[in-house]
């Protein structure tokens, strides 16, 4: 963010507003919440960011950590930069949202005029028989970066050559649609280069997935005999797991692995349920124009937890939605008009360290949802020179550096 766009002293805002300074609380310090908080602050709004953890561990590029290609430390970020920018940051869990007030675990009460929730995801330990939180200590999900990422990386590093690695992939919707396939690619790269007698079995509850043709073309070229992909129609849907024996069951039979990575079904993070903004789908319906909840007025939901139509649950989308939501909140608080917003998404995936592919989209509100603009967006070309793939791999890392600097620097 440029100097000209940030750092409006909060004192300035008060006289410009008719009824005193409005208060906005943002809950969730990931890519969505940090972006919304900074953007609100830059527009003169007094904003408090609530995030229980003092260290954020980023999911993008964490598949490279799992494959031993990137240090864990490169994924960790703190909140001092946000404080330096002038945002009040409180490391407390939010325990209730009643009326126009948030209560934190230490009893602090935060009244608000508008509340922005960036809840992220929670993993469902009630959806796949046998996959409890205890089971994740043996069969890691590694779908929220941190200790689980390190655990899966360690299991792979310690696996004897000749073993079978199993990944299970859920139905839609879940965080990061292409993420499981990037992970499969980089685990296959790890096996090919470090444990060449080993195999990876990917069991998918779907028949179609993001960037599918690009991934499958790359797998055929780079990882033949290493990566076996089993879609729903061939028995890929896992119906139960057994952590004791590292066994997964499908309607077509059982599989045992030396390392088993279970990516379970997901839901909106806990604060969404606490605030009453999640519906029976366990995700949060919103009005696309301003991200306001369809269930509770005055609360806005951004990022993975929101039902954002054609927009995927990605870090890029959360960051972009944070900016657009902040503009909408400011317009609502000040009673100023807001032009119909437009959003972008860009997701890079690595299929090897020097081989990147991307998907992009441009979105507008239509029929009550964020919808694709026809003719825009799409994936990298199916045929491209190695230099293009290498450039997209560099851009993936560059995007990560930019988005994390934007959030945390």
């Amino acid at each position: 963010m440029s100097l000209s766009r940030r750092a409006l002293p909060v004192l300035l805002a008060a006289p410009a507003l008719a009824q005193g300074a409005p208060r906005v609380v943002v809950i969730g310090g990931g890519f969505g919440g940090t972006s919304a908080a900074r953007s609100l602050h830059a527009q003169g709004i007094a904003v408090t960011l609530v995030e229980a953890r003092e260290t954020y561990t980023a999911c993008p590029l964490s598949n490279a950590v799992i494959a031993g290609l990137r240090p864990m430390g490169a994924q960790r970020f703190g909140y001092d930069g946000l404080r330096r920018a002038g945002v009040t940051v409180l490391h407390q869990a939010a325990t209730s949202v009643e009326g126009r007030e948030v209560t934190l675990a230490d009893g602090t009460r935060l009244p608000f005029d508008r509340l922005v929730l960036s809840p992220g995801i929670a993993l469902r330990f009630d959806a796949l028989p046998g996959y409890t939180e205890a089971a994740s200590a043996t069969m890691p999900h590694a779908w929220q970066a941190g200790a689980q990422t390190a655990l899966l990386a360690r299991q792979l590093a310690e696996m004897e050559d000749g073993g079978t690695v199993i990944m299970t992939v859920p139905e839609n919707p879940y965080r990061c649609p292409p993420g499981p396939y990037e992970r499969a690619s980089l685990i296959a790269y790890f096996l090919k280069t470090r444990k060449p007698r080993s195999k990876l079995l990917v069991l998918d509850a779907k028949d179609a997935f993001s960037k599918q043709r690009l991934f499958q073309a790359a797998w055929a070229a780079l990882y033949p005999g290493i990566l076996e992909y089993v879609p729903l129609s061939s028995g890929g849907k896992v119906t139960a797991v057994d952590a004791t024996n590292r066994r997964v069951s499908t309607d077509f039979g059982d599989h045992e692995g030396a390392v088993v990575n279970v990516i379970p079904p997901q839901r909106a993070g806990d604060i969404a349920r606490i605030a009453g903004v999640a519906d029976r789908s366990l995700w949060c319906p919103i009005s696309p124009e301003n991200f306001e909840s369809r269930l509770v007025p005055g609360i806005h939901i951004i990022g993975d937890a929101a039902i954002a139509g054609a927009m995927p649950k990605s870090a890029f989308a959360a960051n972009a939605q944070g900016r657009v939501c902040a503009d909408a909140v400011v317009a609502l608080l000040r009673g100023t008009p807001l032009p119909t917003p437009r959003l972008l998404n860009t997701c890079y995936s690595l299929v090897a360290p020097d081989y990147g592919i991307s998907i992009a989209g441009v979105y507008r509100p239509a029929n009550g949802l964020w919808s694709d603009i026809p003719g825009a967006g799409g994936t990298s070309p199916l045929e491209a020179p190695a230099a293009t793939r290498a450039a997209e791999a560099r851009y993936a890392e560059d995007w990560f550096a930019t988005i994390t600097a934007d959030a945390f620097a």
Partner: protein
Amino acid sequence: MRRALFPLLLLTGAALAEQAPPGASTCLGCHSATRVAPAIPSLRGREAAEIATAMRDYREGRRPATLMDRLAKGFSEEESQAIAAWVVQ
């Protein structure tokens, strides 16, 4: 609103963040305004006309691209010019 704030801005020299035209703020998700020597170039301080021309050329497939051709197709000429004027600030 801008007019009402103007005397206050003069007093402190602080700039009020300007609301971005539709789609513009998300450019900053990749095009950093602050990082040194990024691989994806910064747009800050460039000429707005240069950015608008690049957007047009991407949109019309006249400029080599990895990804910008796909994004530029989501914006009209008028929208691209508004975005270009904002992202260079």
